[in-house]
């Protein structure tokens, strides 16, 4: 079993990025200085400044760096917040979108990279003092397709929406762009709605029409980014040609999914995330995953956040890992072969013919036989879920996975991690 430090050594860590950029203090000073200078004079930015910003956004602790700032007071003329009034231009509403939309004037906006290609509805408004780094300069008044969001800092009244934190808005935009550019993933709410509709054709039309988008929070976007970083060797420009086209190209965030593809299907409150053809969608339930809570009856915010991020990592295992070829079969088949718990990908070796659908009974029989059991009860469903749950713990709590499921930890270490490290697929 490898030490955690050895696994970490192969990755680019925040600390390593710090060292390359001259240490914590110099870097912190550097990126803030660049932003201040950019706001004062956009034309003064150099290529090095762009790299500094990209490094700050991409490699360093996004949670710390991208903390939303306190909401400015509404009506304060010095406030950078955007005020919406009935007199502002109307919004072309996205039929799927439920979050509050914003339209209006922003100040000091900036953009890194090329031209924006946001998901969601269309917002029209002016931008003052806007500048673009590394891409085409936006005109003073422009029409862009804006990302959507819904956070605790956004308040809405009839005819008036106040965006609490312009900084947070920009942080989201930067993350959305980074996720698209680095991983080839478009954050696209419509794609999720369509994916669910397509996958549940037999559910009542009223239910399928009841699907609603939920705007990503900044924290969720940070978690998407971090989860994707684990799989970066399989995404975007890094993806090996031998694996073919990238199977997941959009991420979506909806309030609810549908529980079953039958005329009895309803909007459900039990599905946390779901992988579709080309799309992964996260649902509200994903914010209440308690696998990492010390006290499951009272999970902390950090533990729930870990559950949300872990669910993304779980779905990415379905979407990216299961089908990787290994030893003449897929990674999932190899996993099922090596785990004594499974006779095949959907058949448990420890089957009680009197209770074939009892996960608890499967575990009891396996433990009585001295076999290793999946890390979670849900992982006892089948090998698909077992591998996905193991991947989730490998990233979120490797110590526990190594201690409780050494065979699963070793399988990922020996078969999956080398691929995630960018080694050739044989």
């Amino acid at each position, binding site marked *: 079993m490898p030490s955690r430090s050895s696994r970490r050594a192969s990755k680019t860590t925040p600390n390593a990025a710090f060292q390359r950029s001259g240490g914590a203090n110099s870097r912190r000073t550097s990126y803030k200085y660049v932003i201040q200078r950019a706001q004062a004079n956009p034309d003064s930015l150099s290529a090095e400044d762009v790299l500094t910003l990209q490094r700050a956004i991409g490699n360093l602790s996004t949670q710390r760096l991208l903390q939303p700032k306190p909401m400015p007071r509404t009506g304060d003329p010095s406030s950078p917040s955007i005020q919406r009034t009935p007199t502002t231009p109307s919004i072309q509403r996205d039929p799927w979108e439920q979050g509050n939309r914003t339209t209006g004037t922003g100040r000091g906006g900036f953009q890194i990279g090329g031209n924006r290609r946001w998901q969601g509805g269309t917002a029209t408004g002016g931008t003052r003092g806007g500048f673009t780094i590394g891409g085409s300069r936006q005109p003073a008044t422009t029409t862009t397709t804006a990302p959507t969001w819904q956070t605790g800092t956004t308040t809405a009244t009839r005819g008036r929406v106040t965006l609490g934190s312009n900084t947070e808005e920009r942080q989201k935009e930067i993350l959305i762009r980074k996720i698209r550019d680095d991983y080839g993933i478009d954050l696209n709410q419509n794609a999720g709605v369509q994916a669910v509709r397509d996958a549940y054709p037999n559910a009542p039309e009223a239910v399928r029409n009841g699907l609603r988008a939920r705007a990503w929070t900044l924290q969720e976007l940070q978690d998407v980014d971090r989860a994707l970083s684990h799989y970066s060797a399989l995404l975007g420009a890094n993806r090996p040609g031998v694996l073919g086209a990238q199977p997941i190209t959009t991420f979506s965030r909806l309030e609810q999914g549908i529980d079953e593809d039958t005329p009895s299907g309803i909007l459900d409150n039990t*599905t946390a995330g779901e992988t579709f053809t080309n799309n992964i969608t996260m649902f509200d339930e994903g914010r209440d995953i308690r696998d990492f809570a010390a006290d499951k009856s009272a999970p902390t915010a950090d533990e729930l956040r870990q559950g949300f991020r872990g669910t993304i990592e779980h779905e990415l295992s379905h979407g990216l890992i299961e089908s990787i070829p290994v030893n003449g079969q897929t990674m999932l088949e190899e996993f099922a072969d090596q785990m004594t718990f499974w006779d095949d990908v*959907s058949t448990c070796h420890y089957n009680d*013919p009197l209770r074939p659908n009892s996960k608890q009974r499967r575990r009891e029989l396996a433990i009585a036989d001295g076999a290793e059991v999946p890390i979670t009860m849900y992982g006892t469903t089948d090998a698909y879920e077992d591998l996905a749950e193991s991947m989730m713990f490998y990233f979120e709590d490797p110590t526990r996975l190594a201690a409780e499921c050494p065979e699963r930890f070793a399988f990922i270490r020996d078969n999956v991690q080398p691929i995630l490290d960018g080694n050739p697929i044989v």
Partner: protein
Amino acid sequence: MTPQDTSMQLHDWLSWRDLSRAEVEDKFNIAADMVQTDTSYVRVGGLDMLRNRAADKGRFYFRQDQFVVYVLESVGKGPNTIPSDEILASLGEAVAVLPARVGKRSKVHIYPEQGIAISELDHTVRLLEIFPPMSLAAYKDNFYYEPEPYIR
């Protein structure tokens, strides 16, 4: 897999249930250590499972010398993918379509009198079961359970 391949493969699968245990062992080079005794499949106990992965990815279940079921599983991605649409079309309308145990949106198409059940998801076969012709009730009593909800 072309439609012709599919048709031929389906014919092969169905013909295997007519093989005796000795013929299966011979045809698939099943050695003694490839037999798992006193095992079960879904609701049927007291079985022997025969499998030689090098010869065929599926597995045969016998009760002593009596064929019980042949089971083939596939991830639905990668080199061993089996498209489901053509097979299902060639079999006609299923007697029953029920939630399957191979994924949240999966369904098992049951043709009990033809002795075949196909669990499919996203237009691929995930689980194929070949068995002696029987009634739908007998299939459910032997080879089916309703899966618990998938939550992620």
